[in-house]
């Protein structure tokens, strides 16, 4: 059931009795701080997206190497991103990182997945999250 829109600029806590001070946050700070895009993909077999938000797809560039593409563009290329890749083998650590030899754009960013020894691999679970200002 929809209840319409609430419009406000600031959220303020009501616990000043417990903490001696009210705590406030600007709602635009909340908007700019939440992830603008995310996905969870399987790079093994026929690579595919399990679930996502605000992405039009990804390009499988090769082993452990993929580019995600955004639908609602970011305002600039200085956005933050979080990434993670899973590996069942406990003897090796999975590392997922932005490829800094390929500059990001406001609608795309390229990642690489490797073991801690530098060998590139396809992860069963790879996920990214992009945080920043929308265009």
């Amino acid at each position, binding site marked *: 059931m929809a209840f319409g829109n609430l419009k406000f600029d600031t959220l303020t806590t009501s616990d000043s009795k417990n903490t001696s001070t009210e705590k406030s946050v600007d709602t635009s700070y909340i908007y700019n701080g939440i992830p603008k895009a995310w996905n969870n993909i399987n*790079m093994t077999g026929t690579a595919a*997206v399990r679930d*996502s938000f605000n992405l039009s797809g990804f*390009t499988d560039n090769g082993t452990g190497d993929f580019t995600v593409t955004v639908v609602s563009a970011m305002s600039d290329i200085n956005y933050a991103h979080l990434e993670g890749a899973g590996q069942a083998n406990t003897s090796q650590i999975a590392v997922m990182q932005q490829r800094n030899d390929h500059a990001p754009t406001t609608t795309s960013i390229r990642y690489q997945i490797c073991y801690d020894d530098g060998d590139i691999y396809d992860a069963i679970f790879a996920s990214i999250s992009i945080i920043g200002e929308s265009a």
Partner: protein
Amino acid sequence: MKTPEFQGTHLWERLHWAKENLDKVQSDIRVVYEDPEDMDNPAKILVPDPNWMACALQGGILPPVEVYWELAKDEAQPDFEKHTRGYLLHNTKPIEAMTEEQAIEYLIQKDIPQRVWRTWDEGNKPKMIICRTHQLPEHRQWRNAWQITDDIELAA
């Protein structure tokens, strides 16, 4: 379900509506391409997103692909710092419902470099093919050796 009138609504908010109201559509279509500026690397494979595909088939949500070209032009300027024409994404009339094939054509024009798809059939061999997942190799053991003519059959 009818799409609300979304022209003028921020695209990001439209995607929220789609996420809440539309079922994901997993397409088995893939676009395999080779970038002439990156010929030493294996063929790339464009994988459509299931939530994006749902938006494309629903209609009334996504902006025309030309909007992305305009923003890319802005971004290519040497003094680019920040988009000032983001409103094009939100205020341009959204496109109507597409078929799966039309959606893939849109996605090609959005997410594959123009130097690939504008001249895909020029040269000694095609730079790009559209295929189904069953036409791709079943495992990725030799993934970094995949090329269009050697390992991937042309779509029927």
